[in-house]
């Protein structure tokens, strides 16, 4: 038998009840309501500081660290002067709160030296990326709050045990 520790490969291979996606940490959502690691990018939605009905869609690609920030109507962010804007920095900060620095840096493939800020360790240049896809994923995320509950049993959820979050 090889690795029998709770996270070991053997245990993972032959167990049914696992929490494969680690639970995220709660955080304040006012500034950055949506953050995700998906489609090869750290991407999310940042609320505008000045206009309550405007949001920015910001993303950083894994590997290249090329970034983009625009409004949900695809107008480029005015803060992108050859360097990441404040929206992108806010996105990185909140992603670190939500997922932890290890998970974010592993996903983006970036080395973060001891004591350094992840946002300062990214290379990359501005590269247009589709805002519409991210924005629609955010809308889909919001739509979950409108899905009605049910009191019929869902036996399939036995595969998804709740686990303790750090308190």
């Amino acid at each position: 038998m090889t690795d029998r520790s709770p996270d070991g490969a053997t245990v993972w291979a032959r167990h049914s009840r696992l929490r494969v996606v680690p639970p995220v940490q709660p955080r304040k959502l006012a500034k950055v309501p949506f953050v995700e690691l998906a489609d090869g990018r750290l991407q999310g939605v940042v609320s505008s500081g000045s206009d309550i009905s405007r949001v920015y869609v910001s993303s950083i690609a894994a590997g290249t660290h090329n970034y983009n920030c625009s409004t949900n109507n695809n107008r480029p962010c005015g803060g992108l002067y050859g360097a990441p804007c404040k929206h992108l920095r806010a996105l990185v900060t909140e992603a670190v709160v939500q997922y932890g620095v290890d998970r974010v840096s592993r996903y983006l493939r970036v080395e973060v030296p001891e004591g350094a800020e992840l946002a300062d360790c990214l290379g990359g240049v501005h590269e247009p990326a589709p805002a519409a896809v991210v924005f629609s994923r955010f809308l889909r995320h919001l739509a979950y709050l409108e899905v009605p509950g049910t009191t019929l049993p869902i036996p399939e959820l036995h595969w998804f045990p709740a686990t303790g979050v750090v308190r």
Partner: protein
Amino acid sequence: MLAVQLAALLGGGTEDAGTDAGHEEALALLDGFDDALVDGLARVSGERADAVTALAAAFAGTPLADRLAEAADAVVSGSIAQEHLTALACGRIALYGAVHDALLGRLDTALGRERAEWPPTPGDPAADGSASSGSVAGGAASGGSAVDGAVPGDSAAGGGVSGGSATDGAAFGGSVAGGAVSAGSAVGGVVSGGSVPGGAVSGGSVAGGAVFGGSGTAAEAGGAGAQPVGNMLGGVRSWLRELAITGWRGVGHDLVSAADQIIEALLGVPSLRRLAVLLDGFAAELRACCPVGSAERLPVRRWADLWTRAVLLSQDGVLTGEPRPAVTVSGRLLVLGVDVHEHGTAVQFQVHAVLEPADGGRSRLVRTSVTVAKVDTIAGSALWKLSQHHKVLLAALAERRSLEITDMPLLDSGDLVWDDDRAFVSKPADPLAAARLCLSGALAPAVPPLDRVPVRIAEPVLVEGYKVTRDGSFDLGGAVLAVDTERLPGCGPLTPALVRASSACVGLVRWDGGQWTLQPLAVQTKVKRETAVVATGDWALGPTDPKAAKAEARAADAVSVLRERAGRLLRR
């Protein structure tokens, strides 16, 4: 649970910790098939091809034999159609169903727990239990054969394990085959549902007949009005086929994202909720592990479980048609505890309780569940707020009181369909007291044929008089039961330290990865040197601990921020 009962469950301290030889063989077949899914069914060769063939060969002489043999040939020759995958999935379900039956039989025997029999469908012609001799079409033609087949399967499995000693291969082979036949003929209906032409005798209605008793399922599966549902399920099956052919190692962002629209559509149809919740959790895991090719470790059995389950639920007629309540019941409900299930976008609070019927009948074990949709950033005790319109149930959990219910629907599976309007909060009764008074002698519910999966085994027990070992397990007179302290939900106050300091515990006995474990729901423990009861549902009306209350204020803020954003952005 007494020391002698635990010893019986664990098999008298033998090395294989509560399993039997034939059982290991069944799991080995399962693992072989699961391993084949890692690199995909498009390129199976050598050992992997043998494993798929072996799974099919295990069904020789059962109603599934021909279809599985054909499917295995298709995999080996590389021409895999939808129906082949469905057949293989059904084989895996049947085999795992047999493992489930053997495990639950062993647990019931050890606990001395009596379980209701799955009710036969009235008016069914195939009442002689000869499902195994019928053809697939014959087995599928009636829900009753699934049901009747299940009964001998159960008793054979029970006989196989109750001996307690090492069963010889033949005897256990018999019990596994028996169980496989029972589950197999149940899923046989599903197999043929996809391929037998003519909606009127569609096997879909068989599965419906066996599990839900729905009479309108055939119409729903074949009727013109239900076309969109049929399309959705077709979309799910295509995606699952793509997954199986690609294999976990080949999964990339595009394949995962292809599920998004399907899931969104499923979430809009209440009768397909189970499939939506399952696929959503599954797709999120694949996404989180993307690109899977370079992942260090893979949850091989788990993903095969989830894939198989999704294939089953996406067959026409399995989910469509509401489950029909078997009866309505009234009486006193004594809460044993609440089990919490959660993934990024759903949480289910499943309450285990003993029902004392108002008519003075025998008390029975029941479950009742509340499931709500959520997003990943809503976690911890804020989860209770999402289900706050079930105030009566939450109050009973938080205040540790019993409930009086009137005319509440009870499904054949032992699930009460909760309705706050049919319940009120009654006298104080903490979970440990309820378990001491009422647990022994309560009748356990039958398990629906299609739900016979080991992961669903969650039997409430009371454990007392144990010593806590160094690794946190409970030592009960020399028999040691592992305690799963990783499954203590973040929405309640129960912590590993409190469980470690406990002297009595109500928990769920589960089986996973070849091991029996106890998942605590409530404990009698020491809090600041005072004896107290702490349970997973204590914060149902809000946290009682100041630190957690602060965290909740933050999280509750999350709900309102997202609602505000939704109001502003969603309908434009």
